[in-house]
């Protein structure tokens, strides 16, 4: 896809292998920001559709364990 876009914008394709090389370094940050963004959006939508429990949201010092109980 990026190849198509670069071509469409009339930009040199030489950059792609270089970006592929540094990608692992920047990908961590991007994934983190995207995940935080998803949760931010989920919070906003939930709050506005009355699907958010303020009491749980504002509880301090919660310890989340990784055991998954039935979610659905």
């Amino acid at each position, binding site marked *: 896809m990026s190849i198509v876009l670069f071509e469409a914008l009339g930009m040199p394709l030489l*950059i792609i*292998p270089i970006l*592929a090389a540094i990608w692992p370094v920047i990908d961590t940050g991007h994934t983190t920001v995207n995940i*935080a963004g998803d949760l931010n959006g989920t919070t*906003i939508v*939930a709050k506005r559709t009355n699907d958010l429990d303020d009491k749980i949201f504002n509880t301090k010092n919660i310890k989340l364990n990784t055991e998954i109980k039935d979610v*659905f």
Partner: protein
Amino acid sequence: MKRWLKLPLYTQIAIGGLLGIILGIILGDNAKYLEPFGTLFIRLLQMLIIPLVITSILAGILKMKDAKSVGKVGGGFLFYLVITSLIASTIGVIIALILKPGKGMESILDHGETVESEEFNFVDHFLSWVPSNIFEALGNMDMLPIIIFTVIIGLVMISLGVEKVPMTTNIINESANIMLKLTEYIIKLAPYGILALLANLIGTFGSDMLTAVFNFVIADSIALAIILLLVYPILLKLTTGLNPIQFYKNIYPSMLFAFTTSTSSATIPISLQVSKKNLGISEKTAGFTIPFGATVNYGWFRGSDWCHFCFCSKFIWDRYYIGVNFEICFIRFSFIHWSSWGSRSWHSHVHCAF
């Protein structure tokens, strides 16, 4: 050993990551022998994506009971994604114009390989979102057609009424729980997988490349920090009045896991847990938005990736001395932005290109 297993997963991941970095520095090029373990972990995570996304989106939709709430939640979340990516692209362009990360890259660019390009048609691209053959979409892991099909099936089930399809509903809920449990087991391997991945990355990464692209990485990080520390908190405060600091305290397990694995889909089960237990959001909303958000990551729709693209472009413009101003940058990108949604991660395309 017993003490190790008793440590919380996040501590284990942090220790594994640290050991991986140290091993990478010590082993250097030899760290490549650890790569298969990292690849195994990533393959296991990839194995989960399709069944996990399908079952949790369906289970989420079925919880909503009527199509109106699906539209409200889905539409609201889409609107949020659009707004944040537009803000992110603006930030990306501004920072790229100020910092000019492409400077000093000339020598590297001259040694790049040439890559083949292909034809692109916007209408065909939008049409490709609708799967003509769902099994073909599944086989190719085209996530957007798969999601569209899944949402349609979910809406049909709601319009039939969940009480008319009790067996299918039960199967979906049980499958969703099975997939989440399987994910939990695979995530237990994360400390070892991450150790191998980081050792390989550090060991085989050319330090020349890193110094050459240092400016680029710095500029990229600044843009990400602005999104994370300003854009998200302000949006949250303005639209809901909730405390952003409390929000970040609640979601840190998801962020830590995303940071160490770099895999959005692997973070789905963690984020579902975080939404339910820490944010107080029911699976009605989170069951839909979390898998959806994590999957459109593949679609280059996301704010931060968008801002990254602006960098790449500005970076090249600097190199080729093409005069460009903010408006041209922004308008052209906005146009391409819409057309690029739904295509697969540019990352995977880069690897196809080799």
